[in-house]
């Protein structure tokens, strides 16, 4: 109650006003409205409970009076109670509102919240609120403690070093944001801790007490009320209730609630949530409108009558959609150590603006932050140990000091949110006030722009701010009006911005096409045969698949390599924490390690069986020097192989031959991890600076190369990895480069770039064999020869040829190799190029597979090979050419699908 009172006053008077300052009238109105709605819990809370509400008593009374005036008396009580209706109710309850159920268990109320048949037994003693509350609080405290290091102790560190994502480099402003959020989160928790009157699950009294309270004069008989938890409505009788449960509306809502469990609010969009009605509004206006609306009032009234607690009307800001898994949290906890400067924003963000008591927690939302975890904990069940209780005792006082401040911040944030959303109403001059046709006082409003009518001034106001009205206004009145682009539309645009050839063809569409043109295909079996023929991949693709299978790295090897890289990353992160923890401020600034990222084949997931080395790039804040390398060599082994870790594999750290990079190798020499150091500062530094300190600093070229590798790895993730057929072709070309001398000259980066360009410049999705043929053709058409365009490097600012390092002879040899390869592919001799056994032709393959579609297989072979066999087209000049001649008719038939001829014969 003090909280809400505070909120109410603050919103009315304080500097962080609830509604942005522009229009005075709405602001005052909102405050009043808020007060009126807030009154509901007050009427309820003030009378029967022992909870202190002293501070707000006067305000509450006033508000209650106000509300009494405003609202008509509750509807007459429904029909007589039914025995057994509890059973009807139970399923819906348990399935959709588990939180509620567990809460009731906690507070020793009957599991059925529906108001049972009337005979009120003598009131059992009210469990002391403290007692009922404390155990969950203790557990919450423990939870809190567990999460604290995650929040403040650089818990994001798991992602921090970007184990998977190459975009793991941190921007400073992220840290700050993150810190804010966590303060808020903690604050929410603290508030809850401090306010004894409200239990987190809402101040629910046992059943009989409710009865007592509501058996006041003038209260309707509630016994027969059937309440649906999901839809927040009451039904007059069990029959109606049953019908409701079977009804469309209820099922829809149930489904929606379930869905919400899986996915929550849209990312990047803050939403305001009314806990009571379980309604999410996209803006402050919409929320205010909801609070004013009849639906909300009805629900509030119902809840009051049922004796349920009313949550505050203050909105709950819901934001983000990522759910942190418990496993992830645990892992973070293990790995994290205090490193205040480096935090990762926890993805799940849900903030309670005000710590008002809430009714359970958001049903179905799996979001977790410190605050919501705390809220959820009471439902978790058994009391915690004394140990955790002590822990909570420790944290509580420390954090309560900042509660006030945090509340302020939260208000600021809400205000900011509202301000951002605030749109000035436009075009009020286009609203006509019409006298009501019935001739009574109420007026109707008519918007001339949109041609719509409202009875309610609020609705009018909402309309003036609404998107539709603004669009009309923009179109008809003022084209300069700015209208925010809908996020859904933005998402659509993004989707369509993607190249269309990146998408797969939908087989359903293919089938549909087949159906439409069925008559052309004459017979069903023919259709089936064709489909089968298409489904089987071409012989080239089968060769490639077979080759890739032989090239693939064994799964244990790959995992070992992956594990080695992960260990190195983790060790580097810990070393980074050590570095930043010790050392004075200056030193710290200098030696900070900013991130580590995988490059090379492991990062791109194109490892082949011979890969024994993974590569990492360590990004430092300043130009790394040899001293840093030495320091790392000192520190790394301890982190890589902690003495007590029992790691089977011993790792040794040494400098690479040049002294510029680190080489972590397994004791058995099988796997190696090469860590090169670099910094963005290297690129920005001018020549003079580097000259001055060149004795210590690492070689500039090497550092720049490492930076370039970082960009390339990012490029790979962003552009290339989604391309169809890209990865297989990269693997095949890696094999070429290893096996064929002419290909060896082509650098890995140049090869990848070439492949990407070839595939993405193709107009249609391509199979691996098509993509490979295109790559070969691209080389064959003289890409790298003098006079050819070369490979423009997208990862460099200046115009750079990614294959610029090739010598003229290497270019010539590579092109010659590609020339031969093109013809090998065209003449169905890919196996020679791949250096493998020739696979059986499609027909034989099919026969061996037992499918036995001889006809289509043979037809496919004929179309592949035979269509290119001898056929003729005439020419007069060709009289002096020696090519064999055939009639045009013949060539025409040869050219066409052999099946077409067959089918034509069928028709005859």
């Amino acid at each position: 109650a003090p909280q809400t009172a505070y909120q109410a006053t603050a919103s009315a008077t304080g500097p962080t006003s609830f509604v942005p300052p522009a229009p005075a009238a709405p602001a005052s109105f909102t405050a009043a409205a808020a007060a009126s709605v807030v009154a509901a819990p007050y009427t309820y809370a003030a009378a029967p409970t022992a909870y202190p509400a002293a501070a707000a008593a006067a305000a509450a009374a006033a508000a209650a009076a106000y509300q009494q005036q405003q609202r008509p008396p509750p509807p007459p009580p429904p029909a007589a109670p039914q025995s057994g209706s509890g059973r009807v109710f139970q399923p819906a309850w348990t399935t959709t509102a588990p939180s509620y159920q567990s809460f009731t268990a906690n507070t020793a109320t009957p599991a059925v919240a529906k108001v049972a048949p009337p005979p009120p037994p003598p009131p059992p003693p009210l469990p002391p609120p403290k007692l009922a509350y404390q155990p969950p609080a203790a557990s919450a405290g423990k939870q809190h403690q567990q999460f604290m290091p995650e929040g403040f102790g650089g818990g994001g560190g798991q992602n921090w070093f970007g184990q998977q994502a190459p975009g793991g480099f941190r921007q400073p402003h992220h840290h700050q944001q993150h810190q804010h959020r966590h303060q808020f989160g903690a604050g929410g928790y603290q508030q809850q801790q401090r306010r004894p009157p409200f239990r987190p699950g809402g101040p629910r009294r046992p059943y009989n007490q409710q009865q007592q309270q509501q058996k006041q004069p003038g209260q309707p008989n509630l016994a027969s009320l059937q309440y649906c938890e999901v839809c927040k409505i009451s039904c007059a009788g069990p029959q109606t209730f049953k019908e409701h449960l079977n009804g469309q509306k209820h099922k829809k809502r149930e489904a929606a609630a379930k869905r919400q469990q899986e996915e929550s609010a849209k990312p990047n969009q803050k939403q305001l949530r009314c806990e009571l009605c379980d309604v999410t509004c996209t803006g402050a206006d919409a929320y205010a409108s909801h609070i004013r609306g009849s639906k909300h009032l009805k629900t509030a009234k119902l809840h009051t009558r049922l004796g349920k607690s009313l949550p505050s009307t203050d909105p709950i800001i819901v934001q983000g959609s990522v759910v942190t898994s418990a496993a992830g949290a645990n892992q973070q906890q293990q790995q994290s150590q205090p490193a205040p400067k480096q935090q990762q924003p926890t993805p799940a963000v849900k903030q309670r603006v005000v710590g008002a008591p809430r009714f359970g927690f958001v049903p179905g939302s799996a979001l977790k932050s410190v605050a919501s975890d705390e809220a959820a904990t009471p439902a978790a069940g058994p009391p915690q140990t004394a140990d955790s209780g002590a822990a909570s005792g420790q944290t509580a006082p420390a954090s309560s000091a900042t509660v006030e401040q945090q509340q302020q911040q939260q208000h600021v944030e809400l205000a900011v949110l509202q301000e951002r959303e605030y749109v000035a109403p436009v075009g009020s001059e286009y609203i006509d006030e019409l006298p009501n046709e019935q001739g009574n006082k109420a007026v109707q409003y008519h918007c001339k722009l949109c041609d719509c009518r409202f009875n309610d001034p609020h609705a009018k106001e909402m309309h003036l701010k609404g998107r539709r009205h603004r669009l009309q206004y923009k179109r008809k009145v003022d084209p300069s009006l700015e209208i925010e682009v809908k996020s859904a539309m933005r998402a659509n645009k993004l989707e369509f911005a993607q190249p269309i050839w990146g998408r797969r063809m939908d087989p359903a569409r293919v089938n549909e096409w087949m159906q439409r043109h069925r008559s052309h295909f004459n017979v069903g079996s023919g259709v089936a045969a064709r489909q089968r023929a298409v489904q089987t991949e071409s012989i080239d693709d089968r060769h490639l698949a077979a080759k890739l299978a032989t090239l693939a790295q064994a799964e244990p090897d790959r995992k070992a390599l992956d594990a080695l890289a992960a260990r190195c990353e983790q060790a580097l992160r810990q070393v980074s924490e050590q570095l930043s923890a010790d050392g004075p401020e200056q030193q710290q600034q200098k030696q900070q390690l900013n991130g580590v990222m995988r490059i090379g084949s492991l990062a791109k997931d194109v490892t082949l069986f011979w890969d024994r080395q993974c590569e990492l790039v360590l990004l430092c804040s300043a130009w790394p020097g040899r001293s840093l390398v030495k320091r790392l060599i000192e520190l790394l082994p301890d982190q890589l192989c902690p003495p007590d870790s029992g790691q089977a594999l011993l790792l040794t750290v040494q400098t690479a031959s040049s002294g510029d990079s680190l080489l972590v190798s397994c004791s058995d020499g099988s796997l190696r991890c090469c860590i090169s150091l670099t910094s963005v500062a290297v690129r920005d530094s001018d020549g003079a600076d580097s000259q001055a300190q060149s004795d210590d600093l690492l070689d500039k070229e090497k550092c720049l190369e490492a930076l370039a590798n970082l960009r390339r790895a990012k490029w790979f993730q962003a552009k290339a990895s989604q391309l169809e057929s890209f990865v297989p072709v990269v693997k095949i070309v890696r094999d070429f480069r290893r096996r064929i001398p002419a290909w060896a000259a082509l650098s890995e980066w140049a090869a990848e770039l070439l492949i990407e360009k070839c595939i993405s410049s193709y107009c249609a999705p391509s199979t691996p064999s098509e993509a490979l043929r295109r790559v070969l053709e691209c080389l064959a058409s003289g890409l790298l020869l003098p006079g050819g365009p070369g490979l423009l490097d997208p990862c460099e600012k200046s115009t750079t040829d990614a294959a610029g390092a090739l010598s003229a002879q290497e270019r010539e040899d590579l092109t010659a190799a590609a020339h031969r390869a093109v013809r090998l592919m065209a003449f169905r001799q890919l196996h020679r190029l791949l250096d493998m056994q020739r696979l059986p032709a499609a027909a034989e393959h099919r026969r061996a597979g037992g499918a036995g579609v001889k006809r289509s297989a043979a037809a496919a072979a004929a179309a592949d090979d035979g269509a290119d066999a001898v056929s003729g087209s005439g020419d007069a000049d060709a009289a002096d050419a020696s090519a064999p001649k055939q009639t045009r008719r013949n060539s025409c038939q040869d050219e066409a699908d052999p099946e077409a001829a067959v089918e034509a014969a069928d028709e005859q």
Partner: protein
Amino acid sequence: YRGSRPRLGFQPQPGGPARFRPPMAHGPAGGGGGPDGMGPGFPPSGPPGMRNFLPHVPFDFVLCDPQFFQPCQEAPDDKATNELLLKRNTDLSPSAEEQQAVTGLLSKVQAVFDALIISPDSLEAAQMAEVRPVGSYKKGTMLSGHNVADLVVIFKTLPTKEAVRSVANRVLEEAKTDAKFVTVSQQPYGFQVSSADAVVKVLVATLPANLKLLEPDLHLDARIQQTSLAAIRHARWFEENGQHSSVKVLIRLLKDLRQRFPGLTAMSPWIIDLLAHYAVMQNPARAPLPLARAFRRVLELLSTGLFLPGSVGIADPCEPGQVRVHTALTLVQQDEVCCTAQTLLRVLSHGGLRHVLGLEGSARIATEMSVWRGIVVTPSDKVYERQDEDTAAAATTSAGATGEGQGA
């Protein structure tokens, strides 16, 4: 296809018949459906991916979106190359005397036929419908030293060998009145009128409707007549599409290449016409490419396998359906053409333009190792193996057999 990227040159030619069908029939948008270009009785051009044979579109810098292959260096100056090509073209063009000799002979022969058409009664043996000049003379792509003009004569009657002989005699009589050393020799395609410095080939054909009535031992060969009729279509197409001078120059240069390099012999004049036109005109801007670029492009196209099995190649604009012109070549020839072009492309890139054009050196550069500015160019070797043809042939036969079985 619906994206901003230009489709790889499959828009129908302005003013010409639809030349290309999207080769990758992967979706309803592309494969479309409906009998586009296919004759009656054929199924629509394939549901998405449903045709068994999907031709491959070879890589081509010109048709690629420029964003992908922006040149890294400044494009080398093409001026010198252009001049050299034009010079070579002048060398190859027939001199004024040669031109005059052919024109003179041709106009005489044509006059005879004109007279025969106007007064059909003057010759019992045959009735003539029309006479048309075709071939390189008509197209203006004659080479020097190859003074041959082609004339197609269409008979209303069936061209028996006797009828052709009597027409030839009539032409000889008429021609002898004002030129002394004219001879006429009968050929499978009709007859040939030769003077001292020029030749006119008279290709005899009948009306297309009569082709069915031909009998092999009585009349001229039906296939040859069909090629003669096709020649008329080619000449007409060229008149509409090939009038740009770059195209003509390029055709002349390519014909010269074909004469000098044995590997390219398999390319018929019609293929060369189409290839030259494609290289010059087939680009996103629809503006003719500069000559030097087009010349290099021809070699690039051949190198990437435009005329290899499975490639989309160039569809014959004068044939119904999708006849890819290079399918007239045998697999061995396709390999040879590609090989030679690949070697020439590398020689050209390393500064061997004069050798490629035949201004210096010999044709051995296409078959023997050569050194250019210290860079060794190894000629491409043939990869096609006979045994593959056997299997391919076997596959074709079995397909035919099975197909017939099913049809029965």
